């Protein structure tokens, strides 16, 4: 990810409203070439609209869209060097799989042997060799998803846009496709712009991600950075589960897995320790989740691996008084949190 040269995608002050509803409210964004970039956010946060602005399906009310340094704000979708994998796949039902994949090449008048070769390559890439003559209706959801991917990638676009492409798949297939997409992106070296509301997906797949909320970007960064150092409560709460504890007028976020319930014998060196009482216990297979009411005010969620503890033992913890501790660097002060009370006034 070199910083020299132009970004693959750049949004400058992009704004889009539908009637009174402002979907995208002044977004600035730079996506580097060959990057796997994820736009993460709840539904209605503006991430899909941003994707549609990049694809050209929507014109911004204000601001600019640039692709590889070129202003494409006024260009229609068919004149932009991007391709999209749609949430509902949007495969042409009246064409075979082969015709679907070949469509982009046909429109660009790439004919004969080259077209056949590239279609075959693209289908091989998504492991659908031999499916050329099937109709989309004869395929499973996962297969349709892969056809959509092949249909986009066969054009070798500079940027591939993916609009919640795994949303319709079941969990197992989803996880498998996450792997495949990531591997594929590294093979083809195409910039991927990936829209999802699934924070786990965003964390596992992306080189960088942007967290959207209410038409704006709250934070952009690498997954670990965003997870460990959320810039505000929204990001802390949306990307993973987070505890917010207020101490001395400042708000801190602490991830549940970073908090330890200390036994009497445990050393508390270098830990910040507080007393509290376990209010609730949820046994979730591999881990147990505890909610602890802190004596110093507020509550904290603790996730603990069930290394030796049985479910019975875990559930018996309810109501017990405990000490909880965490390392200082894991309690991350939310920037600007001191202004929080003023904003709430």
């Amino acid at each position, binding site marked *: 990810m070199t910083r020299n040269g132009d970004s693959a995608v750049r949004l400058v002050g992009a704004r889009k409203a539908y009637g009174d509803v402002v979907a995208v409210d002044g977004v600035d964004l730079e996506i580097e070439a060959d990057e796997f970039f994820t736009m993460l956010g709840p539904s209605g946060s503006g991430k899909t609209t941003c994707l549609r602005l990049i*694809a050209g*399906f929507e014109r911004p009310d204000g601001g600019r869209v640039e692709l590889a340094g070129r202003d494409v704000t006024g260009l*229609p979708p068919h004149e932009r060097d991007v391709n999209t994998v*749609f949430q509902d796949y*949007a495969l042409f039902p*009246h064409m075979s799989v082969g015709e679907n994949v070949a469509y982009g090449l046909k*429109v660009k008048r790439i004919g004969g042997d080259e077209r056949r070769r590239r279609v075959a390559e693209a289908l091989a890439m998504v492991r659908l060799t031999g499916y050329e003559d099937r109709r989309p209706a004869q395929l499973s959801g996962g297969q349709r998803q892969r056809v959509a991917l092949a249909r986009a990638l066969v054009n070798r676009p500079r940027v591939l846009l993916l609009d919640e492409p795994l949303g319709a798949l079941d969990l197992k297939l989803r996880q498998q496709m996450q792997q495949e997409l990531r591997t594929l992106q590294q093979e083809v070296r195409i910039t991927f712009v990936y829209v999802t509301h699934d924070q786990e997906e965003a964390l596992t797949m992306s080189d960088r991600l942007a967290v959207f909320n209410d038409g704006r970007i709250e934070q952009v960064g690498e997954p670990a950075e965003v997870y460990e150092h959320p810039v505000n409560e929204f990001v802390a709460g949306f990307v993973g589960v987070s505890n917010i504890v207020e101490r001395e007028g400042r708000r801190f976020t602490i991830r549940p897995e970073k908090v330890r319930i200390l036994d009497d014998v445990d050393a508390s060196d270098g830990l910040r320790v507080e007393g509290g009482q376990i209010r609730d216990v949820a046994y979730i297979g591999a881990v147990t989740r505890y909610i602890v009411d802190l004596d110093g005010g507020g509550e904290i969620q603790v996730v603990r691996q069930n290394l030796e503890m049985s479910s019975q033992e875990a559930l018996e913890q309810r109501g017990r008084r405990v000490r909880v501790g965490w390392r200082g660097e894991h309690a991350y002060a939310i920037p600007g949190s001191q202004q929080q009370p003023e904003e709430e006034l």
Partner: protein
Amino acid sequence: MLHLSNGTRWALRIGTAITLTFIYVPLIVIAIYAFNDSRSQSWPIEGLTLDWFDKALHNPGVRDALWTSLKAGLGATAIAILLGTLAAMAVARHRFFGRDTISFLVVLPIALPGIVTGMALNATFTQVLGVDLTLFTVIVGHATFCIVVVYNNAVARLRRTGTSLEEAANDLGAGPWRTFRDVTFPQMRTALVAGALLAFALSFDEIIVTTFTAGSEQTLPIWIFTNYSRPNQLPIVNVVGLMLIVLSIIPVYLANRLSQDPIGAPGATAGAGAAARG
């Protein structure tokens, strides 16, 4: 499934039977009279013959009227497909000022009394434009309500298929015209054929607007109307009536079938409703 008491169920059955009887018994009577052995019409008929079919097919008046009706139906349908599709694309695929109003105005002719449409067209053709009443004016007159059924079918299909396929084609490099040809049109094809069949059926048995716009042209319904009161023509009229029934039912039946195919649209039901106008 809704649970009905025995009494209600029987009431519904009887109601349905009465309705179907009212609709179809008179049609069956016409069909039977077409095979009537005797020149005079009385019930029950005395014997069966196919003579009247032969006579009807060789009657120059019938042949001319049939030909005129076919030309009028095909002409009106052609105009309806072109304009109905364009209007449907505009309303279903573009946002513009007054879109809902236009959508309403396109559909309105189906609700207007035919006699008013007829008067209005007659006045416009003869007095304002100063055109003679010919086959052309019949076609234009029929097109006013034929457009509605094509439009209704096309709009319903366009709304149901949504825009994502078109966006996908755009995204893959196809411009507006290419997208229409490769994606939009194939998606609406069956809906257009269904709309066209209904439009043709509407035109083929239309008489009110035709009366005002035909001048000296005789369509099949007008030929029936003028000959029905002539006793010596009556057997042939019955045959022509049967022909009209068959030629109107076939397109409506086909249109219904087309609307039930896998990518069929529910729009044809709106069209079939409109067909009741006749």
